[in-house]
């Protein structure tokens, strides 16, 4: 090894990690104005939606995510093909929905995959995305079908019924968004203000208040911080002689946007922000923080960095391991930093411990596995820790990404879960237990893959992996046991029984029992290295069932996150784990034996 090479080995992880973090940081920079309209400033405006105050940017992103499963729209008005299409961000889309609904109705925002739903509306199955204009003529039928399907319990619905209910809910959300600030087909909010006290206007105020998705008018200083008003409520208050200062600039903002007047638009936003900073300074501060979080998408960036780390470690097994292995480690650390920053932001924004719903549990499970993997890599320094940690981090963030479809990932906590103490203790420990069990399973998979694919037999590596998995199983047993018991204590505090054999409790108990079985089988000598590894992989099956399967069962006090599509994903995962277990139990190189037997006649000729 030369001097220069030695230096490169030292600095490679720092360069790789530093670059990854810089890349993630760049994503958090403010957006440029579009056509002179300061969309960035618009995104900062605080509103109340879903029970909490958030920047309007979050409303835009979450709504578009719910309707289109993406945070932006591609719009191609003249049909010139995908290259001519313009990408419209969530903020601009929301402005169009609010103030230029005729244009917004043309954006292809409704993703419809179900062929029967498309058939019902007589639409061609050529694309996935449809505009509101395209589905509007069929909404009556959609509503009729959805109401019929609604009578059926969510678990019993057919694919068509679920899809039609889902489409109706999205169309309804879109309709409510359009009617949040002003009713389409009326002259707009400014006209409503001018005629607030006129006879007949109260009916429109009631319609606005009824439809509103978010409440843009902050409570006056000194009032209850929850008393935000919808535009309809503010208009009704105005008619009663009680004026909200922020109503008028919202009206100006809308007029200027519809009239394509950027300077008036920007001035209206500046006025609004000035007024809001006076009456709701905390909401403004919180909004500024949340918008950085929205833009940075730390969990998405973390996912990308974990993939890079994984690629680097794969490459290191083929080429220049002395440089690539530390590089991969550097990338893993960078991923962990980004992941941690994201988690910390969520905790600060929500004012709650990191795990509050299924989505955040996926984020946290990955985080725990990555940190554990980092520790293992520091102890063993063989690259396996890096590989498994990067894979675990990537997988869990992918899973989390697919759990965001319900909209706001920082929704409010239902009454019984509303306890920071228990969320911080029980939920965190049990989730760390999941992380540990998955990591042990991941190490066992690494053990299996290495045994079958490594060019030469290397019992020392296998033994090291088995040792790591053993250590992690001990760790997982500890956390899942403590977590389960803490859950029991929480249940004793809130429902009066320590243990109720509720499905989620049973799931946690299964993890504890399985880890205990693995450890006792090892201590008793009933299972050797290979058997323990197969059992560790089965731990993945049990943990995934306990984590997601229980929610699909739909009984018990814990069933907070039922998902129908996830059923197939879960089944696929379990099958893959069972297949891997078969490989674990097969002797190394068994397929090479077959291959060489076939190759022999060819070689002889």
């Amino acid at each position, binding site marked *: 090894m030369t001097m220069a090479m030695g230096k490169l080995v030292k600095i490679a992880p720092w360069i790789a990690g530093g670059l990854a973090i810089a890349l993630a940081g760049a994503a958090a920079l403010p957006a440029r104005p579009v056509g002179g309209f300061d969309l960035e400033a618009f995104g900062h405006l605080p509103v*109340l*939606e*879903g*029970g*909490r105050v958030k920047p309007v940017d979050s409303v835009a992103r979450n709504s578009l995510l719910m309707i289109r499963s993406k945070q932006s729209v591609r719009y191609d008005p003249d049909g010139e093909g995908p290259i001519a299409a313009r990408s419209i961000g969530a903020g601009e889309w929301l402005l169009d929905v609010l103030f230029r609904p005729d244009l917004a109705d043309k954006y292809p925002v409704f993703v419809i995959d179900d062929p029967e739903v498309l058939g019902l509306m007589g639409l061609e199955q050529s694309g996935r995305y449809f505009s509101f204009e395209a589905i509007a003529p069929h909404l009556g039928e959609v509503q009729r079908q959805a109401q019929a399907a609604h009578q059926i319990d969510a678990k019993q619905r057919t694919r068509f019924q679920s899809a039609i209910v889902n489409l109706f809910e999205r169309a309804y959300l879109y309709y409510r968004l359009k009617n949040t600030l002003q009713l389409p087909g009326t002259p707009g909010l400014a006209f409503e203000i001018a005629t607030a006290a006129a006879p007949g206007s109260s009916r429109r105020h009631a319609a606005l208040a009824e439809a509103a998705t*978010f*409440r843009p008018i902050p409570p006056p200083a000194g009032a209850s911080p*929850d*008393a*935000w008003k919808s535009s309809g409520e503010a208009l009704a208050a105005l008619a009663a002689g009680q004026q909200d200062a922020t109503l008028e600039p919202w009206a100006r903002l809308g007029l200027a946007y519809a009239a394509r007047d950027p300077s008036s638009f920007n001035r209206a936003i500046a006025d609004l922000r000035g007024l809001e900073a006076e009456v709701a300074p905390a909401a403004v501060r919180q909004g500024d923080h949340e918008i950085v979080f929205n833009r940075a998408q730390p969990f998405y960036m973390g996912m990308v960095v974990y993939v890079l780390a994984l690629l680097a470690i794969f490459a290191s097994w083929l080429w220049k391991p002395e440089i690539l292995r530390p590089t991969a480690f550097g990338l893993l650390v960078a991923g962990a930093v980004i992941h941690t920053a994201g988690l910390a932001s969520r905790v600060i924004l929500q004012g709650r411990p990191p795990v509050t719903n299924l989505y955040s549990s996926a984020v946290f499970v990955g985080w725990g596995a990555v940190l554990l993997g980092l520790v293992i890599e520091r*102890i*063993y320094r063989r690259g396996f820790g890096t590989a498994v940690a990067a894979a675990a981090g990537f997988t869990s963030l992918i899973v989390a990404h697919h759990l965001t479809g319900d909209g706001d990932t920082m*929704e*409010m906590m*239902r*009454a*019984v879960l*509303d*306890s920071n103490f*228990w969320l911080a203790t029980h939920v965190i420990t049990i989730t760390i237990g999941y992380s540990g069990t998955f990591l042990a399973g991941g190490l066992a998979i690494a053990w299996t893959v290495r045994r079958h694919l490594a060019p030469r037999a290397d019992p020392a590596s296998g033994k090291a992996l088995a*040792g790591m998995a053993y*250590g992690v199983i*001990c*760790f997982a*047993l*500890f956390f899942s*046991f*403590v977590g389960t*018991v*803490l859950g*029991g*204590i*929480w249940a*004793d*505090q*809130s*429902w*009066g*029984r*320590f*243990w*109720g*054999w*509720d*499905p989620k409790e*049973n799931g946690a108990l*299964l993890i504890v*029992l*399985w880890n*205990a*079985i693995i450890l*006792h*089988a090892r*201590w*008793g000598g*009933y299972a050797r290295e290979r058997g323990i590894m197969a059992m560790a992989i089965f731990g993945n099956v049990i943990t995934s069932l306990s984590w997601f399967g*229980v929610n699909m*069962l739909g*009984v*018990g006090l814990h069933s907070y996150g039922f998902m129908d599509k996830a059923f197939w994903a879960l089944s696929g995962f379990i099958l893959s784990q069972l297949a891997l277990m078969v490989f674990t139990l097969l002797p190394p190189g068994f397929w090479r034996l077959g291959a060489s037997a076939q190759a022999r006649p060819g070689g002889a000729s």
Partner: protein
Amino acid sequence: VKTPARFLLWDALTSLKLTISCLAALMVLVVACTLAQVHLGTFGAVELYMRSWFVWWDIPGTVLSLPIFPGGALTGLVLAVNLIAAQARRLERSWRKAGIWIIHAGLILLVLGEFMTGMYQVDTQLIFREGQTTNFLQSPRELELAVIDTTGPAHDEVYGVPERLLAREGEVEIPGTPLRLRVRRFYQNSELFRLQPGQTAPATAGVGTGITVREAPPITTDDRMNIATAIVDPVAGGKSYGTWLVSNALDATQSFVHEGRTYQLVMRAKREYLPYALTLKDFKHDVYPGTEIPKNFSSLVHLSNPSTGEARDVLVYMNQPLRYDGKAFYQASFGEGDTLSVLQVVENPGWLLPYVSCVLVTLGLLVHFGIALRRGVRRQAEARARPARAAAAAGALEVQS
């Protein structure tokens, strides 16, 4: 050498294989119990798999049933015995194994706690409207036939006949009264129908004269109650007061007079009277602004106990039960436009055991894995130091040569 049978038994009882088998059996039971909850409800599934000695299989077409799997109670018992026996026989009494000792002691307590819960825990409910004062708890599942002497202006005399006695369909003496109830028929669960022309009613007195009964299979799910119906003849002083139909599906008051005293017959949830009373002053159901997501449920309750002179207000809300008189009162449900509150009342003399147990096991696991981790890290460091030392030695050799 022939091993005496008792040694074989001792070997089996202390073996690690038995431990693993029990843990595996427990996993099977837990999975079965979880899946069964979809159809049986939590209570039914737990009774079937967890609180039983055996899981029984009814042979189709016969009245026979076979035990096909050990139940939760048996598995738990064997596991506990195995733990204690193995601990006594195999484990060395050394500091190195201190963690294991503590863990196993804690686990034994945990199993014991679950047994205590299964045997002694009593679940009842306290249901009241705003402004109402209540001094009794009622069972969420069990019913009773109450004979109430409503003659006294100040208070009623109540005697409850439990379902168990009614099911015998014999004669029941009502203590403190001259009455006897002759139970003609008892349905644990039933359906009631309006009497059609051409049918005869089982009852000859009260509202039951217009009703027929049909037997129904007992309900096992958690969310519904049985509709129990009894056909009874109240007899006093050698005189029968007719045949009455009493059911918890009936709202109407049914009473008769014997020697100037009025007696009511009511089928209702089994009650337990308290020596103190609770008044619901206010029930609150808060939601997050602009949503229907519940934020909090709370009952402001006034507790008054004449025997101790206590009179105070208590707020019962999510995760904050009232613990009083060996019972815990939890906010469980609500109804009637947020004016009715349901408190779950639990009495479990063993409620502290799991707490002690979990502290023990946690400590034990920490001690044990701490010792193991230290050993592992030391070994790893030695393994890494070995090649380095070898290289250093080789270098020293080169310098010397």
